């Protein structure tokens, strides 16, 4: 330790480092002035190391930003577009099936004489109309967008047939038709057929939209942005940056006898913090998307399917003139609970906190600290 702390130490068997004068008899070939600052002795080596660390930092910044923004964007699309489109289409399907059931119940019970197809029918039609409007706003193009005008026309047609059933039923009652209100029930049968015909009926058209929306939702939830493989890239970039910092520390130790450069050490710690933050956020988001995919969505689908099946069975029984084994139509609370669970998972997946701001801040800090660490050494070669 006979030299001042931080002063250059020639490596054993090597030429004097840095700006030590080369032998006058053997001048080095003239280098292009633009690259000389990178090549000349220890300062050049320091500058190369600095450039390497800065490059690795920028790369980490880029990759971390792309991964986090990709994940956030995917989760946001799923939460704000794919999931609502699927739930709107599914709900429209269920409430229209319930509208058919409610109309039949009103006719069979005799309420239709005073109330027509009934209040529940009206509520279901209103809900279906709102769902279709929201669908149109969410998916102006694609399968759903193409099908919606058709569905809209079919819905108007269905409502027209129910109105005809109501009118015919009242007319039959008014004239005391002994045939048993056949025409009113006939029109109601036509309305059910228009709705439930598996080949091109209203519900079949909505099922087409539901299937397309479900496919989009599954693709979103299974997006490769939510794949752990992408995190390997982040780990690799952070690992490379750490390796560069360690290499710089080692060089400083050899050339300058400095055990630790504090700015570089802090830069290394910030790199680890950045990596841990990105990993924790990404793993949490992926976990939430996984929960939505593996649990909340199947549960929601199951609730809707169970309710639709029950409503379909009740409607079929009423059409056949039988008393349904259960009544009451849709259980709105159960579907809302199932839908809330899915929304909660997707909201959690979308929440990346302050990370989008934290990544550039930490990257700038790493760059600044690295520059500071190297500047102290490079300054020793000036003047």
């Amino acid at each position: 330790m006979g030299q001042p702390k931080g002063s250059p130490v020639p490596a054993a068997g090597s030429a004097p480092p840095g700006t030590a004068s080369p032998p006058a008899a053997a001048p080095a070939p003239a280098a292009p002035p633009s690259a000389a600052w990178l090549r000349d002795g220890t300062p050049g080596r320091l500058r190369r190391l600095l450039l390497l660390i800065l490059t690795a930092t920028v790369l980490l910044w880029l990759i971390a930003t792309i991964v986090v923004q990709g994940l956030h964007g995917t989760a946001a699309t799923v939460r704000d577009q794919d999931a609502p489109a699927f739930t709107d289409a599914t709900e429209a399907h269920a409430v229209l099936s319930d509208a058919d059931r409610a109309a039949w119940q009103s006719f069979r019970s005799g309420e239709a004489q005073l109330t027509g197809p009934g209040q529940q029918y009206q509520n279901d039609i209103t809900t279906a109309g709102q769902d279709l409007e929201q669908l149109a706003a969410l998916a102006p193009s694609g399968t759903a967008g193409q099908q919606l005008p058709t569905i809209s026309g079919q819905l108007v047609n269905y409502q027209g047939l129910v109105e005809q059933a109501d009118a015919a039923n009242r007319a039959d009652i008014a004239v005391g038709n002994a045939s048993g209100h056949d025409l009113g029930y006939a029109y109601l049968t036509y309305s059910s057929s228009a709705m439930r015909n598996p080949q091109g009926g209203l519900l079949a058209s909505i099922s087409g939209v539901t299937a397309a929306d479900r496919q989009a939702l599954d693709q979103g939830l299974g997006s490769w942005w939510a794949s752990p493989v992408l995190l390997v890239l982040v780990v690799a970039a952070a690992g490379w940056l750490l390796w560069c910092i360690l290499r710089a520390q080692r060089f400083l130790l050899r050339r300058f006898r400095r055990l630790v450069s504090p700015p570089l050490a802090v830069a290394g710690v910030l790199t680890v913090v950045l990596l841990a933050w990105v990993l924790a956020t990404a793993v949490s988001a992926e976990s939430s998307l996984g929960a939505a995919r593996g649990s909340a969505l199947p549960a929601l689908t199951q609730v809707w399917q169970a309710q639709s099946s029950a409503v379909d069975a009740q409607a079929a029984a009423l059409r056949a003139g039988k008393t349904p084994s259960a009544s009451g139509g849709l259980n709105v609370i159960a579907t809302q609970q199932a839908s809330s669970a899915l929304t909660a998972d997707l909201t959690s997946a979308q929440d990346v906190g302050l990370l989008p701001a934290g990544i550039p801040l930490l990257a700038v800090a790493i760059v600044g600290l690295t520059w500071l660490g190297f500047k102290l050494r490079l300054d020793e070669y000036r003047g």
Partner: protein
Amino acid sequence: MPGRSRSPRRAVALLAACGLAAGALAACGGGSAGGPAVVTVLGSWTGDEQSGFLAMVRGFEHATGIQVDYTGTRDADAVLASDLKDGNPPDLAVLSRPGELRQDAADGTLVPIDAALDQARLARQYTPGWRSLMQAAGPSGARHYYAIIVKAALKSVIWYDPRQFPARDLSRLTSPGLTWDQLTGVARGLARGGVTPWCLGLEDSSDSGWPGTDWIEDIVLHRSGPKVYDQWVAGTLPWTSAPIRQAWQAFGRVASTRGLARGGPAAALVTSYAQAGQPLFTRPPGCYLDHEGSFITAFYAQDRLGGSRHAHPRPRTDFDFVPFPPLASAGKGTAEVAGDLLGMFRGTAAARKLISYLTTPAAQEAWIRRPGSGAISVNRLVPLADYPDPVSRELARNLLGAASVRFDASDSMPQIMENAFNNAVLEYLDDPGQLDVILGGLDQVRQAAYKP
């Protein structure tokens, strides 16, 4: 140390690789724009008919790379009306009624297709009568081609199962000079024997009632002849006139007389036209005679034979037909037909190409060759040998060879008249005693519908 001195270069290489990877990651978020041209088609063909149309356009898609996006629903008329109201019609739509074609052409809703058609070729392949059906007057009054006939159907047809029809009556039914009186005599004989002669179903979603209008139209045509039929279609013959009233009453005697129609009027109202004929093939049959257009063979071919899960009725063996018999000499040699017209609502280049393709014999053959399709081509260059079975060949021969062919009357009337006719049939079956009120109501609609 060489290794140490090269490490920054390696780092730069690694950086480049990572940069490429990051770029690729970012790029993967985007999608490709553009794609193949698409023709949207709306029609009432579903099930096997939809498959027939898709088979028809497959060759076009392969040859041109243009994609045909077909939407099939039994409520196509209502959907088209809604699409037009929203200003978002499909490129092409199937119109089952010349009345609708004339109305949409006059409104300027339909786009003329003259430019899409080789008219010399069309003249060689289609008779003047069929070509006339493809034309209409546009908003300026000038006549143009506005549609093509994709396929046609013979409607004056009565179906039966040759294997199950009572042998003592079969020879009377199939005798060349079969008359209406003989046919009704056979039916009454079957009823007296304790079985139901007629299958009947009027349900077809929002178009319910048309199977009954077909009955009445056939009776008018085969009783009063083409001249009276044309006056009626043109709106110059009142519904309350004797020929029309008597046709309704004749239909009522079949549909409402106890024991003549399966299930009676209440069952006929809610039985689908597509399923009405299924009891022909049960053991024993639920009914023995079915008045349906030639398209019904597509449904028969999917029915179960004798309750079997795998066996389906086969033409000639399990179902065959006799022409609707004349009720009077004026109705001899006549036949009622129908056709599916395809009109253009958005004049894209791809839509014009598809229109042109669909008139060719190759396209027409792709549909009619499908076993059980029930489709008949009116293109004269399509040989009878291309039909897949003797029954469909016979149907095509009857359609193309009839001395006096008339298009379906209700399809030819203005739309509000047609809708009123459909609903009137349903009301008549519900309460036959209201016939005077019903016909009077139809005349009121007539005065509004035919107003110049």
